[in-house]
């Protein structure tokens, strides 16, 4: 579904991605973790070309993302993305947030878009808030709306960029619950997160990135958590810091 071959990226002279390759199959849930500055947010944003790359190839469902001739809006409309800071459109109501891209990008009619959007809103348990503005919701609620917004576009894959790291601790659970449900339904997901509990529970694979944009580990969940002795020193150091002792 997603294939990345030898991708490198620089901001000026600083290299943020260093020869990254990975493969995500349909229905897989892959968690990407690593210390801050390791380029994991950049990595996930290259998949829908929000961050262009200078070297390497990226394929999503057979479409060449790195190719300048690719119709990016069309590609992006099929790839759902959830951001760290939610990025709901604050001037639009919850319903309008859910429908605007369906109507303007996919060309759906208003009724169809609304029906689809409200169904997704119901799924994240926020139907009662459909007429509110984002600023009137809590962080956890906003993030759930953001997930519903991405889902209402019927994406073939969902990208999550640290979806819980801007949330107050008591709201992390409600967002993770929605994501666990999605994974159980077989959605292909790539998740940048520090929530190792989530990784343990639902992921198939874990990718560990280190400073400088290297992919240091790409291994099955059971191997990653079950065989810590076999991990790279940097990975062990990282896991020691964030795993409960």
């Amino acid at each position, binding site marked *: 579904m997603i294939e990345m071959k030898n991708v490198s990226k620089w901001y000026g002279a600083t290299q943020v991605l260093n020869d990254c390759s990975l493969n995500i199959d349909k229905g897989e849930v892959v968690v990407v973790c690593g210390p801050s500055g390791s380029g994991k947010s950049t990595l996930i944003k290259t998949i829908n070309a929000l961050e262009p790359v200078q070297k390497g190839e990226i394929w999503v469902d057979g479409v060449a993302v790195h190719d300048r001739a690719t119709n990016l809006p069309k590609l*992006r409309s099929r790839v759902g993305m959830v951001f760290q800071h939610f990025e709901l459109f604050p001037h639009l109501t919850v319903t309008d947030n859910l429908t605007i891209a369906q109507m303007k990008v996919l060309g759906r009619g208003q009724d169809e878009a609304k029906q689809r959007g409200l169904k997704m809103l119901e799924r994240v348990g926020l139907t009662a808030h459909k007429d509110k*503005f984002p600023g009137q919701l809590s962080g956890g609620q906003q993030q759930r709306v953001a997930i519903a917004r991405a889902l209402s576009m019927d994406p073939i894959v969902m990208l999550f960029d640290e979806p819980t790291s801007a949330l107050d601790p008591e709201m992390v659970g409600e967002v993770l619950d929605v994501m666990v449900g999605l994974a159980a339904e077989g959605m292909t997901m790539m998740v940048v997160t520090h929530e190792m509990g989530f990784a343990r529970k639902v992921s198939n694979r874990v990718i560990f990135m280190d400073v400088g944009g290297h992919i240091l580990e790409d291994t099955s969940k059971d191997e990653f958590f079950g065989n810590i002795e076999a991990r790279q020193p940097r990975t062990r150091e990282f896991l020691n810091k964030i795993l409960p002792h």
Partner: protein
Amino acid sequence: MTYWQDIWDRWQFLWDDRGDGVTYWQWMFSAWGYTVAVAAVSLVVALAIGCLVGTLRTVSQHRVVSALATGWVELFRNIPVLVQLFLWFFVISEIVPGMRGVPSFVLACCALGFFTSARIAEQVRAGIQALPRGQRQAALAMGFTQLQAYRYVILPQTFRIIIPPLTSEAMNIVKNSSVAFAVSIPELISFAMQTQEETSRGIEVYLAATVLYIITALAISWFMSILEKRARVPGLSSQGQGAH
């Protein structure tokens, strides 16, 4: 009582005929009308150009376009409005083919509108750049084209942010319209200067003109505050930021 009588007498000139069947009273209101009309038309010109140029300055992938937009802003921002007015009247209308015979009202509105467009462009640019970067990314991530991202996500939020600076720009344009006296547009300053000369009632005339300027300014701030209330989004501060 003679004191009040005296004051009353000092304002009597307003009902005098200027010699052409028009009283100073009537002239004053037509002058006010000119001030408002010049300001209003210029504001429309300035808003149209300013929004376009300010938006283009944020389109970083087209170097030439954003450089042209920057050049526009610097050119019209760094020459005094009075000098720009003279340029339109004595240079552009002289040497640009087809500009000869353009009515002076139109030239004045071009001068004021272009001058103000540079300032509005700066506010539009600042407003766009004040939005969280993620908003643009979120719009693109959903499959919007650049144009759609501006149309549905970025500009609607920008306009809410820049209503306060636009209010002061609207007031500025009324104040700046006063330079039109220098090219004989019959607006409030022209009226004040000429009536002062003809009647020697300087204090009264200036007072009348000043009060009319203040009334205009109050009207604008009242109108814009209504606009701001209309545009307000629940849960969103005027800074245009969401939670975080």
